[in-house]
């Protein structure tokens, strides 16, 4: 059962947790993002002397669990990130998660591309749109984007090529 659930996408897990009240699906979903959550929380644990891992994570997870039941979540990673950030900013307040405009647009585009997988006409229109957008970029940006996305160059390669440093 656990293995089957871990193969499901975030969306399906959320749907299961919400509609079927499947605690296992909820657990799998939280487990999937737990290590990232830990990484995010490291500075908070280090900087706040009063913060304890034994109390911080359970309360954070409880908040996530509550949010999962009440909030509509399109993107789990963004939801986790935002919840964690609001938790650190206002530990007492329950600020509901709301996806940003950019995130929603990005999600919309991603969905559109996913749907167009078997639709050639839609695909063609998308490709022309992307090409037009790329043409609209500055030469420097366009070079980086093309190198990164189309030539599979790494950040390190591109940084070395351009002489950028991580500061």
């Amino acid at each position, binding site marked *: 059962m656990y293995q089957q659930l871990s193969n499901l996408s975030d969306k399906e897990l959320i749907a299961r947790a919400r509609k079927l009240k499947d605690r296992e699906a909820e657990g799998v979903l939280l487990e999937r993002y*737990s*290590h990232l959550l830990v*990484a995010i929380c*490291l500075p908070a644990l280090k900087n706040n002397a009063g913060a304890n891992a034994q109390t911080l994570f359970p309360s954070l*997870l409880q908040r996530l669990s509550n949010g999962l039941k009440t909030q509509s979540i399109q993107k789990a*990673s963004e939801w986790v990130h935002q919840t964690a950030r609001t938790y650190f900013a206002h530990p007492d307040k329950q600020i509901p998660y709301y996806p940003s405009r950019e995130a929603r647009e990005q999600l919309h585009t991603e969905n559109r*591309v996913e749907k167009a997988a078997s639709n050639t006409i839609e695909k063609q229109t998308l490709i022309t749109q992307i090409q037009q957008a790329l043409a609209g970029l500055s030469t420097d940006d366009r070079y980086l984007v093309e190198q990164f996305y189309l030539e599979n160059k790494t950040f390190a390669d591109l940084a070395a090529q351009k002489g950028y440093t991580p500061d």
Partner: protein
Amino acid sequence: MSNSISYNERLLKIFAGVRCLNKDQLPRYLEGRLTDIEKHLVEQHLVDCDLCFDALQILHKEGQLEKYVRLSNGIQQYIRDSIKPVSQLQKMERYVRKAKKRESMLIYFWLVAFIAGGGALMYLMQQYNRNKPVMARPAAVPVVPAAAMAASPPPATDSQTLQTRPVTLASSTGAVTTPPATVTPPPPAANDSAKTAALKKAAEDSLARKAAAVAAARAADSLRKKAAAKDSVARHTVKKDTPVMAAATADKTEKPVKQDDNNTAGKEKAESSSNASKPAATKAAPSSSTVVDTDEYLYRAAMVYQQQGNLDEAISRYKRLTANTGRVGEMARYQMAVCYRSKGQTGKAKRMFKEVVRMDGTMKQAAQQALDNL
């Protein structure tokens, strides 16, 4: 062309969703131990995902990889611990609930089945009780015919005993009591009609019985009291009775022959006068062989039909008896003629009467008379 397609595909891939870094990808990325494709996908994802980017950034800067690994393991364990027992408990609860439900359903089922069975049993019992008389009737019904059969033979046996009784009584002269009186009538009956004879029989019978009883009682009384006057009276009555008895016994010795003549004589008259009186006459008719006996019974049955008014049935029964050339056959023919006459078929009646006359039996005179009347 293929290059252009791949180029277009790569263009679309810009917007392909990539999953967040999993638990073992993150440290490997930091250590630079990822394959090229993996690294590219991670980096493409990092462009979109703030969570992963932040996590990588923090880990890269802070360098608390050991603490991160420890904590991430701890939180994973914590999640599993907090989720699993609950789910296990839920499963147990669900199972227990289901089992309970099944059990209760079973109980209900058996309850309903028991009640239904009981109801059916009650209903069947009621039905059985209601039908019991009906069931018993078939058993009783055969009894009735049996009783009828048993009742119907007696006439035969009675007649037989009647026929045989004179003989037995005649042989046993010593113990002569009232029974002989029933058969004694012949002398007076010889001249009178059958009806009067029967009446007289009854009267004499009762008288004789009473007299005998009174005599016996008085004799006993007289013996006890030893009163002379009463004794003489009693003796007178006894004396009066005894001659009659003696006469009766004397008659009986001759009866086997005499009775036949008397009866037949009476019968002739009775038949000529009325059909109804015939059974009584025929009862006395003597018969030696069993064939004749059965014929007589058939004849009597036919007579019953005739008296009931079922002439057709009576005629058909008489017809069967016409084969008998004896007295019964003659009687049957005569009765058939009577039936025809009462049905209005004078032609057939005449023929039958003529036949009876031709037979030259005891019924000849009556038949001739009837012919004359027709």
